[in-house]
């Protein structure tokens, strides 16, 4: 029922594909364009200059890519296990609803607005303009996401299985390594990827807490846009969007197997 069939279905499908794929086609194409100005519909020439500069280390994009990857990996690798354990505390505690509302707290702020309120604290702690400061700031959102994400995992069924381990004489370590970790392996992977994305795409907090000293790929895109260098901006954008997109293509279930908070 309501399903568009025939030509209508094909047109609707084509429009959705065009809508979703356009940035992923235009950005790499623009990064390869030698010259592409109005009114040309396609680049006059294709040139790998921007990519060769990147690969040859002639522009800072490579260095920034490495730094962005490092920050996102640290955020994802730390927030996933902490969120996993913290969610257990929230799920099984009497104040579950109260704690869960607290877990949503960072989402009551726009990252930039939060950054303006937090900067004084980071300055006081000498964390502004440092890699540690940026990682801590980004972890606020990633950790909150991880807790909200894992709370439904800690349910009656999982609790019953854990109790069964103890009834059969198992230890806490065995319950954790033989039951809970295997049960949650896929969810841990999903959460790791989502936390990585939260950090990978973060702009506002990084801008403020990084204080211009910690450059990441999203910041670099804006820098090149402000310099009116669309080809390098497209290169930085391509590096920003292609790895996660390829990952999603091969692991669709890692993105939308369950409900998750937006933003």
């Amino acid at each position, binding site marked *: 029922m309501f399903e568009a069939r025939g030509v209508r279905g094909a047109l609707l499908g084509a429009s959705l594909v065009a809508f979703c794929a356009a940035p992923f086609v235009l950005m790499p194409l623009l990064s390869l364009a030698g010259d592409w100005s109005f*009114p040309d519909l396609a680049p006059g020439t294709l040139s790998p200059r921007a990519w060769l500069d990147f690969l040859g280390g002639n522009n800072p994009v490579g260095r920034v890519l490495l730094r962005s990857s490092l920050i996102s990996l640290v955020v994802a690798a730390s927030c996933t296990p902490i969120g996993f354990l913290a969610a257990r505390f929230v799920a099984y505690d009497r104040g579950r609803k109260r704690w869960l509302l607290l877990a949503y707290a960072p989402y009551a702020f726009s990252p930039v607005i939060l950054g303006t309120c937090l900067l004084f604290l980071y300055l006081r702690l000498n964390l502004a303009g440092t890699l540690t400061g940026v990682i801590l700031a980004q972890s606020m959102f990633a950790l909150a996401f991880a807790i909200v994400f894992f709370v439904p995992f800690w349910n009656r069924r999982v609790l019953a299985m854990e109790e069964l381990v103890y009834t059969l004489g198992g230890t806490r370590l065995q319950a954790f390594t033989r039951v809970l970790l295997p049960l949650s392996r896929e969810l841990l992977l999903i959460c790791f990827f989502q936390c990585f994305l939260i950090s990978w795409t973060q702009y506002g907090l990084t801008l403020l807490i990084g204080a211009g000293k910690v450059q990441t790929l999203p910041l670099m895109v804006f820098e090149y846009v402000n310099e009116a260098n669309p080809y390098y901006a497209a290169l930085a954008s391509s590096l920003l969007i292609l790895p996660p997109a390829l990952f999603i293509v091969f692991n669709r279930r890692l993105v939308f197997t369950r409900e998750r908070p937006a933003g």
Partner: protein
Amino acid sequence: MKSWVSERLRHRGWEASAFAIYLVVGVLPIAAGLIYALAYSVGLAGLLGKGFTLAHWTSLAGQAEVWLSLLTSALIAAATMFLTLLAGACFALGLRTRLRQGVVAYVVYFPLALPATVAAFFVFQALSDAGLLARVFHALGFIRRPGEFPAMIHDSWSLGVIAAFLILSVPYFTLFFSQVYRTEHLEELCRLTLTLGGKRRDCLRRVIGPIFWRRGRSHIVLWFIAMFGGYEIPLLLGRQTPQMISVLTMRKYQMFDLASKPQAFIAALLYFAIVSLLMLWAFRDERLDRDV
């Protein structure tokens, strides 16, 4: 209600420590930031702090800038959300099979990995007066010069801003509604509606619509909040007056004129108050304490 968790399993040192880390990293800084913002706004903190005063609040109350900014942000977010829900529902209902197999099933996931920064840059490249769409118009003979192309960037209707937000939100809600359609067995419910004498319109209005809304309300509010406080997209594509609230807050915060800093903090506090109320409303009967 008797708890289903035994005391023996409830209290664990590691889990409590992990949550304490969240409180230290995530909640305490927010509380400190809010207190600082409030103190700054009433003259109790910062370089301009010379004792308690409500002067900054009263002066801001008389200016339209912040209120207009909040209103503009809310209107843009609401318009985008309306279009998102419409498009998301159309795609989810019209492409049910295609969303599970074939090219569509893959490509629709792409924008979930799209940062707002890139979405803004893409829309700038696509909709500016020398952008891709203008070139198509030129090729079709509708315009001769870039200046003849209707303004869609920095324009008074915020079309570019809305377009960029849509690129991020429509695929998400398409997938979300598609999932709800399956998990809530809406196909069967609609057939039942028809069997009982209802029309296709009744299916949409009385079955699908209410269930989409009930299941999606918290998602809708969280997305609305994300758009309401969006920064990168309105920074690149939005108009200068009135600016969206995040852009305005940041501008006032970064201005050389120190007198504008308290106004930045007041804008931040107003934003926080509005968003908190929205979240409390969204989650008021969301069963956060349910046994899953």
